[in-house]
């Protein structure tokens, strides 16, 4: 009797759990339809719905940053990348996430500059950190094999890197770890800025590169706005620390004088591409630029050491 009761009780628990799962899935499934019993549609409700607004901040992509650096006339220098051997230093979630971002930027940089061996090494390093962070299937064996086969085709490499980034940030966002996705992109952003400043400091006058570095103030604003959303969340200590460090860099950017004219659009009727025309004037003193480089260098050293 008792065992029968237990079996029934177990079955009851099972039914409740499955039913809960079913309800959960129905509530969150795409194409959800709310029935009349759940919701009466009336003008007030429609007005409320129309007011509902979700706000997202899309962070700069490491691939795009690498392309910007290359197009600004930079030359490849492996010395500026984070050494592969440093991976053994990263054991906390914070250091793994930040340095997954750093290595993703290095991978993008190496691939953009047609460095096949470095690209493969950095991809394997990214895989190790992604695995350790529990990001499932971000970089699987199939991706590494594709990388091996397409190592001399830059477009294919970009496509593969784009896929790995998408896999990892979609996995994290959809598994309630969006702050980890943000921390990874902070690492990538800092590495991109670090490489750009290093190249700018060690090469002859390069206005394009300096302009691209100054442009990063815009992405920094996006980064700060995004991190603000997580400052009371699961990783609040890390997020607040990053906010403080990025704030120090932002205070230097604020010393740069920038004027931008109103945007006017024009459309090329042949290609159907719209151009957003506006002029930006940037005035940055050598002292401010040096301070920016030092702060970025210090922050990057903290992340990678």
């Amino acid at each position: 009797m008792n065992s029968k009761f237990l079996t029934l009780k177990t079955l009851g628990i099972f039914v409740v759990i499955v039913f809960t799962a079913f309800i959960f899935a129905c509530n969150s499934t795409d194409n959800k339809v709310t029935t009349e019993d759940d919701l009466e549609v009336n003008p007030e409700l429609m007005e409320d719905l129309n007011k509902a607004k979700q706000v997202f901040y899309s962070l700069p992509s490491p691939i795009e940053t690498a392309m910007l650096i290359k197009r600004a006339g930079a030359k490849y220098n492996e010395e500026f990348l984070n050494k592969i051997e440093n991976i053994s230093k990263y054991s906390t979630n914070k250091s793994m996430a930040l340095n997954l971002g750093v290595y993703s930027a290095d991978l993008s940089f190496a691939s953009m500059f047609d460095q096949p061996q470095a690209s493969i090494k950095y991809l394997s390093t990214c895989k190790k950190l992604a695995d350790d962070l529990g990001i499932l299937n971000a970089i699987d064996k199939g991706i590494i094999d594709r990388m091996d086969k397409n190592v001399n085709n830059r477009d294919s490499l970009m496509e593969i890197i784009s896929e790995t980034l998408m896999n990892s940030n979609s996995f994290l966002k959809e598994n309630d770890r969006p702050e980890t996705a943000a921390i990874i992109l902070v690492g990538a952003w800092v590495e991109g800025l670090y490489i750009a400043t290093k190249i700018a400091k060690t090469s002859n006058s390069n206005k394009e590169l300096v302009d691209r570095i100054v442009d990063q103030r815009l992405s920094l604003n996006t980064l700060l706005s995004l991190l603000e959303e997580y400052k009371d969340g699961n990783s609040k200590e890390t997020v607040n620390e990053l906010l403080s460090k990025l704030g120090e860099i932002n205070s230097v950017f604020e010393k740069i004088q920038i004027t931008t004219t109103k945007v006017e659009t024009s459309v090329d009727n042949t290609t159907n591409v719209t151009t957003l025309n506006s002029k930006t004037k940037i005035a940055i003193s050598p002292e401010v630029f040096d301070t920016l480089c030092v702060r970025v260098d210090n922050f990057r050293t903290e992340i990678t050491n």
Partner: protein
Amino acid sequence: MKRIILLIVATAITFAFATESNAQCKNFAQKICKLELLPYIHDGIYNATTLAEGETAELFKTFYSGQEYRLAICGDDMLPRVEFEVLDGERNVLFSNKNNNYSKVWDFKLESSQQLIISIQVPTNDKMSDQLASGCVAVLVGFLNNENSFDQF
């Protein structure tokens, strides 16, 4: 022992159901919306969410001078046609897909780098209905792998 096994199985089923819808949105972005970007290279950043009729969303993103971009905004088939506008920092409208046959994509380049706002709205269905549809909306950004395109300005 049986009870423990049963509970493990039940928990696994719970997890599977709960992640199913998320996977659908991710698959929608990866398998369907990403195709709209071709031949542009996806920047690798995943922006997708579930929106219902009448809901709006805004995405803030920095776009860089000299780069050629394609913006792709796709809504689930069950949703009415998704409307989107691209605004500058002062919220002036630079592009509206309502004026462009509800196009899912917009190709553009910039003379100077800007933070733009992509404002998305899922309109309410015209038909009088007591049902509100909701579904995945993905916003993906692609760029062309052009070198030396700063020269164009």
